[in-house]
Each structure stands twice: as C-alpha cells, then as structure tokens.
C-alpha cells in the first residue's frame, strides 16, 4: 500500500524550475515504490500560499508545500503547519538539520521548533558591467565595497546625453513589489535588525533604518546616481543588459539569466558594506501541513531529506540559480565543476556568512505591506524617511501587539 503525497510548489525563476522539480520527484518515486508524490505546480509564491490556505480551509490540504520562508508565522498563526521536529527524532536527523546554513535557518525556526526546511533560497548580490566600468575609467574588476564607494562609482558611471537626459545610471536597486527585501540589505549593512526572532516586534523606526532609507533616497535625489521613482524589479535585468544602468542589485536567482543574456562582461559581488557586510536571505522553505496522517508526514520528511541531499540539491541549484542551502552540497563534484566554470556562483554562498533572516513577522504580508508602503512613500518623495518609518512602526505595533 503506497503512501500518497500531495506537494505544492511555486515557481519564481522561469520555466526550468518546474521541470526540474518534476524530474526530481519522478526520480524519487521511481526509487521508492512505497510512495506516490503528486507534485502540483501552484503558481507564484502568492498563488501558492493562497492555494494552500484555500485548500486547507476547504478541508483538503496538501501534505507538503514550498512556501516563502517569511510566511512561517502566518502559517503557524493559521494553524496549518506542524513542526518537523516530531519526525526528526534520531541524532542523524538532528545533525541533518544543523547542516543547513544558519542564515537560512533563522527564518525556519521559532520557539525552538523547526517549521521550515530551506529549499529554493536566494540572496541579493550586486552585478556590475565591467565594460561600463572601464569606459568610466574604473577598474573593471573591482566592485564598490562600501556605500560611499557605490555613490562615488555611481557618479562616474552616470552618463548624460547632449540634452541632459540620462542614458546610463550608476546603480539600480529595484523597489517595486517587495522593496523591503533589497532595502533590508542596506539596513543590515547599517547594523539594524528589522524584526525580532519571535516575529512579534519590528524596529522600523530605528535611526539606523532611517539612515539606510535616507541613503537609498539620496541615491536618486541627492547623488543622482539612480533613476528616480519606483524601480521595476522585473525590468531590472533588461535595463542592465541594455546599458541603462552599470550596476544592479538583484537576486542570485538571476545569475543564469545574466550569464546567458548580458552582451558584455559582468561581475558579481557581495552587497557593499556600511558598518558591516550584510544581506537578507529570501525564497521558499518546505512546510509540513496539518491534516496529514502520521505515515504521510513521515514519508514527506523522507522526501524532503532526499531532495535536499547534495546530489539533488546540486542539480536544483545549477538548474535554477538558487543557493544550495547546505554546505555539503558545495563540496560535491558536480557543484565544484559548476563553480569552477562559473565563479560568480560562489559569491552568494560566501555572502551567507553575513546574511540575516528576511523580514518576517506574524501577519507577515500585512506588516511588510505597511513597510513597503512607507519605503515607497519615501522613495517617491511623498514623505521623508523618518516620518514614513515612524508611521509604519506605529501601524506594525498595532498589528503585532496581540502576538506579544
């Protein structure tokens, strides 16, 4: 009697991802005749969480799903997920959990329990156009290492045409959709934490956060090295390829895309530092859903262990550009061959050392929504940084008070 599993997964990096997951699942099922896995493509991250919650409320939850790591508190709050700990009883299992990069585990554990297993995780990095650097008289192999350098380089890289219209910007930090994510990089670099580990308190009005936001705003208003207004996330790689910007901040998930499409030499670097290096993590974890039988949950955990194992994980990373979440994966031959051929892939891993948890709280979408609005208001000049963040903090406090 085979155990039936249903497994929702989102796709956020182009067509290959779905195919790879399907391949991996099929391979697993072939090896383990006692399980059948129905891997269901569930749209974007937003769609997936909507689908999972709708299905759960409709009494038909999946047993396993990949959902944003930041949705952990929400899922706990909705009482939809169960911790992995009950099924990770052996020492070996415990060691397995410890094998994930701690930066990724920050978003996966709370109250001493492990709710999420990192899977399709990423982190933002800085890409730069070596040819543009050269043209501006900069060393093409050196990326800005500090905030000040980034402004300085940026000024050199910003080009205008005869009529004064900018044809190439220095840097591009996209701010559409989820501006908090890249901004969080700035905040961490400035030594700030946006939310506590319990997910019930934010620090939006921390002066360091204000300072970070001011820096971001100044990039376009004062220093004029970045285009004004909200910068579209989706069009950013294209803008980079088109020479609209000489540097861009975006996810490592873009590595493959940039490698395939950039018509010039480019470099990848860690985000520049202020007080310290820093970057948020991002992406999705595995969650175990309530309502599954003991057997199903066990089988699900086994599958998660298998798919995050080095061979599979390597395959996944190479196919998608996501950061392999376990150190041992990087030691495999496959990965070594890959990184040897394409060194920039290592930057993200190396940056993990400085990475912090992505902003995540109870009622996460709502709280980050408020934060996003504040950032947008500041970026578009509707409010000054301090006011915007102060108001956001007040609203967030109102929401989170009940979780303290």
């Amino acid at each position, binding site marked *: 009697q085979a155990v039936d599993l249903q497994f929702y997964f989102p796709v956020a990096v182009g067509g290959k991802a779905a195919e790879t997951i399907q391949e991996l699942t099929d391979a697993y099922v072939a090896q383990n005749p006692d399980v059948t896995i129905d891997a269901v493509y569930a749209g974007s991250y*937003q769609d997936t969480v*909507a689908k999972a*919650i709708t299905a759960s409320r409709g009494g038909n939850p999946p047993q396993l799903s990949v959902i944003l790591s930041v949705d952990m508190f*929400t899922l*706990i*709050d*909705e*009482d*939809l997920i169960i911790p992995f700990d009950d099924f990770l009883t052996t020492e070996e299992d415990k060691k397995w959990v410890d094998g994930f990069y701690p930066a990724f585990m920050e978003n996966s554990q709370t109250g001493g329990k492990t709710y999420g297993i990192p899977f399709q995780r990423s982190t933002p990095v800085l890409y730069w156009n070596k040819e543009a650097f050269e043209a501006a008289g900069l060393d093409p192999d050196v990326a800005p290492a500090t905030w000040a350098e980034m402004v300085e380089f940026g000024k050199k890289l910003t080009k205008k045409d005869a*009529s*004064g*219209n*900018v044809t190439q910007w220095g840097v591009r930090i996209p*701010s*559409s*959709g989820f501006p908090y994510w890249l901004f969080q990089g700035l905040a961490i670099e400035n030594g700030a934490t946006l939310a506590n580990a319990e997910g019930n308190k934010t620090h939006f009005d921390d002066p360091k956060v204000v300072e970070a936001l001011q820096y971001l705003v100044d990039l376009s208003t004062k220093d004029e090295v970045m*285009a*004004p*207004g*909200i*910068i*579209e996330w*989706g*069009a950013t790689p*294209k*803008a980079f390829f*088109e020479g*609209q910007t000489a540097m861009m901040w975006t996810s490592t998930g873009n590595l493959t895309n940039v490698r395939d499409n950039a018509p010039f030499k480019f470099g990848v670097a860690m985000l520049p530092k202020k007080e310290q290096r820093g970057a948020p993590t991002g992406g999705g974890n595995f969650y175990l859903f309530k309502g599954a039988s003991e057997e199903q949950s066990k089988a699900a955990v086994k599958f998660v262990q298998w798919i995050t194992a080095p061979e599979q994980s390597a395959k996944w990373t190479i196919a998608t550009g996501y950061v392999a979440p376990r150190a041992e994966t990087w030691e495999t031959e496959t990965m070594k061959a890959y990184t040897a051929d394409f060194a920039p892939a290592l930057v993200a891993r190396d940056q993990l050392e400085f990475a912090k948890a992505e902003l995540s709280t109870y*009622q996460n*979408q*709502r709280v980050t*929504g408020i934060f*996003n*609005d*504040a950032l*947008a*208001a500041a*970026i*578009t000049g*509707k409010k000054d940084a301090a006011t915007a963040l102060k108001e956001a903090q007040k609203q967030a406090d109102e929401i989170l008070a009940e979780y303290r």
Partner: protein
Amino acid sequence: MRDFTFKRDWIYGWLLLLPALVFLFAFTHIPAVTTFLNSFFSTPRGRRPAKFIGVDNYERMLGDPVFWKVLWNNLWYALGTIPVSVGLAIVMALWVNEKLTGRSFVRMAYFTPTVLPLIAVANIWMFFYTPGFGLVDQITGALFGWPASNYLGNPDTALNAIIVVTIWKEAGFFMIFYLAALQAIPVTLKEAAQIEGAGRWTIFWRITFPLLMPTTLFVCVNAVINSFRLVDHIFILTDGGPDNASALLLFYIYEVAFRFWETAYGATLTVALLVLLSLLAIGQFFFFDRKVHYK
C-alpha cells in the same frame, strides 16, 4: 380566466428561471450572504475561532486610510476609464460599421485586447512603460526628445498609466455591443433623416445615438462594474504601488483577503464594494431603464 393565464405564465417563468437560479444561489448568493455575515465576526485564526464583534470591522474600515485612498483611486479610475472607453467604443463601432478600407484589419485590431490574456498583456504594457528603453520612452524620446519617465514608478502617473491599459482593454470589448446595436437600427431611419437634410453629425446625435441608448446603458453598467473589477493587470504592472497610489478597492480586498488572510475584514470591504456597486449600477439601471426604452 385572466388569473388562469397569469398563473400559467408564472409557472413557466419560474420553471425557466429555476436552473439558472440554482447555480446563482449555489455559487454567488449563498457565498455572498456568508461573506456578509462574516463581516460581523473576527477573522478566525488557527486556534482562535471567529467571534462576533458587531460592527467593529466596519469601524476599522472607516478609520482605515488605505480604504479611503483606494476608494478615491477607484473613483478617479472610474472617471478616467468609463467615458473614454465608452466614447471610443462608439466611435470604433461607427467606423467599423461603415465601408472602410481594410475594415477587417481595423475590426480585428480593435478586438485584439479582448482576446489577449491580461496577464501577458500586462507584461507587454510593462515594457511599454519601462523608463529608458521602454517603447513609450523610445517614442517620446525620438519624437520630442523627452527624458525618460517612470510612468509606473511615480505615484502621480501610476494610476493614469493603468487607466490607459484599461481603456485599451475595454473599448474593443464594448465596441462589439455597439456594433450589434448599430446593425439593428433600421436603415430607413437614417434614410429618412438624410432626406430631411441631416448630415452625418445630425444623424448621429439625433438618431443613432438616442437609438443606441439602451446599449449605452448596458455598456455603462458594465463599465462601472468593470471599473471596480478589472484589477488583474495591476498585480503585474504596479502591485498597487507606489504607496497604494494605484491600488483599487478590489485590489485591496484581494490583498486583505488573500495576502493578509484577514478574511473578516476582507468580507467587510467586499460588503462595502457591493453596496457601492449596487447603488451605482442598479440605481443607474432602474433610473435610466425607463427613459432609455422608447418602445
């Protein structure tokens, strides 16, 4: 005797309606009533079941600045989309109804927005609006030497940019209805007006336009409803931003209900939306129906 005929009419009427009503009730009205009831409860979360909280949700709504913002946005959006798309639809229908060189192409062109999926189209429009290398900037740059403009990333233009997409999407759709209505107007009426010395304009304003009134009413009701309901492209183009500058009521409801999972508050906003729409659409319908049907 009269009663007898009437009773038979009743039974026929009800029987004919029955199947449609079953579906309407099962998938629209009963869920809608549940939604309405939910608006008086708190959002159930995990181990905390919903509890009755009276009109707290409504109070929260009235005090919610985002609610007021999206409401105003929506009003502006309605004002921006309805007259232009309806007007364009009439003009398009008139053109396409005439003998026009390349009429098939023109008709197809007007109709394409209806056929293309909004998800894909939104991405195309995103390209059009992209600062710098986007099509709009390429064109305005080449023609007028304008600098790059961030249409979607600027709170002052984001909603207008979305309005343009909506007009593009809707005008061709409404055109179909006008086309059908134009074909139904007896040719002799236009001939009679011609004989009376009326030119194209007079015929349009005095004959065609009034005779299109029932269609206009229908289209306007739809346009009003759509102005509250066409939000798919916003997800891709601006995601409601910057700072809710392009968020509409329904978009906000989605956000509250399917991102924040505050279903009770979502239900409250839905009730507000429904009340608003009913006032607008049904009011419009019953008010004008009498005036518009000349037979």
